[in-house]
């Protein structure tokens, strides 16, 4: 590398470092305030304490919201998995003429802004007389993450030779047995990665949830409500924990993605 090039790259790294500082700034602020007292711009380093973490148990509404979020995420991922697997399998077994159209529809909620998807489902539920609740939220999340899981499954499925499916049928397995014993085991990595990514997405989902939430709040909704009056300090503790959890999930998802790409010989 020439000298001017070295300088240029170094300058770019400086800029990048600043950007990273800005990107991580909010997270850092929150984590620090969960341990220390922050007053405006100064940190009281002597005030290290875990009592906000302990105080979490005293905030039942927030813990309930956390529970709802986990429930919705798990249910949405499960439903999206079943739907995505069924759709992908159907598309694989035979030349389906409507395939591009169906895939376009599946990807719509993922590509369009959440406000559009949220309003659409809200109006639909209204017209059908369905009350807003965690169920409506779950349906909204399912529709959102369906595209991710479908994509991961389809990509993996496409690399599966059709002759394996034919061989299984030829040896006497029904379509269902073929799916269970031959196809599903080979989809495992795609399913795990997709599920992890979908769970992460559902956990933090805010915009669509806003339109579909009823009496029981999810964590983002609860945080929003608390934000208007100002966070109580144990919020920082909870958010720090959630941050740790989501970061772990994201890392797990990334690792399993790397594995699944390496496993494809």
């Amino acid at each position, binding site marked *: 590398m020439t000298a001017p090039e070295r300088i240029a790259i170094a300058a770019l790294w400086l800029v990048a470092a600043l950007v990273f500082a800005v990107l991580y700034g909010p997270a850092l602020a929150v984590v620090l305030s969960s341990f220390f007292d922050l007053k405006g711009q100064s940190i009281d380093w002597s005030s290290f304490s875990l009592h906000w973490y302990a105080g979490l148990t005293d905030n039942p509404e927030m813990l309930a919201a956390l529970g709802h979020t986990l429930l919705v995420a798990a249910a949405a991922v499960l439903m999206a998995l079943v739907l995505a697997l069924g759709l992908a399998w159907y598309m694989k077994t035979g030349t389906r003429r409507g395939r591009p159209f169906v895939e376009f529809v599946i990807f719509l909620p993922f590509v369009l802004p959440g406000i559009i998807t949220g309003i659409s489902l809200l109006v639909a539920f209204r017209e059908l007389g369905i009350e807003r609740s965690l169920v409506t939220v779950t349906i909204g999340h399912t529709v959102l993450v369906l595209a991710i899981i479908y994509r991961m499954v389809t990509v993996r499925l496409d690399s599966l*030779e059709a*002759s*394996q499916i*034919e*061989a*299984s*049928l*030829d*040896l*006497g*397995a*029904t379509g269902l*047995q073929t799916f269970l*014993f*031959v196809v599903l*085991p*080979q989809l495992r990595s795609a399913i795990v990665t997709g599920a992890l990514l979908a769970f992460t997405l559902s956990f933090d989902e805010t915009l669509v949830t806003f339109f579909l939430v009823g009496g029981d709040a999810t964590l983002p909704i609860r945080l929003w409500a608390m934000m208007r009056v100002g966070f109580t300090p144990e919020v920082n503790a909870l958010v720090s924990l959630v941050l740790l959890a989501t970061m772990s999930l994201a890392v797990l998802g990334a690792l399993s993605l790397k594995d699944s790409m390496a496993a494809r*010989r």
Partner: protein
Amino acid sequence: MTFRSLIRLAGIGKSYGAVTVLQPFDLEIGDGEFLTILGPSGSGKTTILRMLGGFTAPSTGRILLDGTDITDTPIFRRPFNTVFQDYALFPHMTVARNVGYGLRMRRRPKAEVDRRVAEALAVVGLADKAGRHPGELSGGQRQRVALARAIICEPRVVLLDEPLAALDAGLRRSMQEFLKDLQRRIRTTFVFITHDQEEAISMSDRIVVMDHGRVEQVGTPKEIYYRPRSEFVARFFGENNLLPVQAAGGSAVDSPLGRHVLAATGRPTAVAIRPESLSLRPGAERRSATGAVESLTFLGATTQIVVRLGSDQAHSVKIRLPTPEFDGRADVGDPISVFWSDADVSVLGA
């Protein structure tokens, strides 16, 4: 070996919209025979195999097994097993689990499955690879696993879709012998697809020759070779001499090889005779013709002589002789007499 019909393809044909890939035909497949469907790519041979296996439905016609119509029977209920061109082994299962798959689908008890898997692997010589995964095996070994997996369920017919195509020449030859030997031992009907004529001739009991979706001829290798019924079949195998014909009144035709009387009505287009059926030695009941030597080619064990026949020297034939028999009898330009037996002449197109 007496022929007992096992499968009957009645009026089977296949079209995709306006495109006909297989013209309707009839075929009987015999119990325990090694039948090869031979043809270049696009001839429709794979389509026939896929229809037998149940992967494609015929557009016309019915398939009967021992008299039972199985045209609408789904793949997993047909008592046939396929060896796929890419072997289609399940990568996430060991060799043993791959081979035992069909038996497990039939819910055979574990002890029986284990025993039969061991037997099948021993038959194909892979007993020590039972715990390996397909990815750890060579191409030839994978091929044998696919074979074991197909025969273990004791199907009525084993369908083989160009199974030797991916193997190198030496391996191919040894596998050909192995397959032929295996088929004789287990006495199961083999329906074998290939585009390689030597393979077909050396392994089959009968050959179905296909071209562009049409069944050209069905017969034993000798029949196909010495008694071709169309120009395609005549040219498909080895070298052949084709000579034109002229109508000669009634059901007879004339050719440079003499007059031929036809049994049935047809539209003869040419006559054919194999180079090795032409000789320089006279004999009883042999026809003859005179001509001039056009070229001589020493090919090692055999010598090829091209002779221009007839007074007008319009047609040439290739003769193939064992070299010692020829032994410098003539030179280029010399007059020469050619002899043959009328039984060795095939009228094509009839």
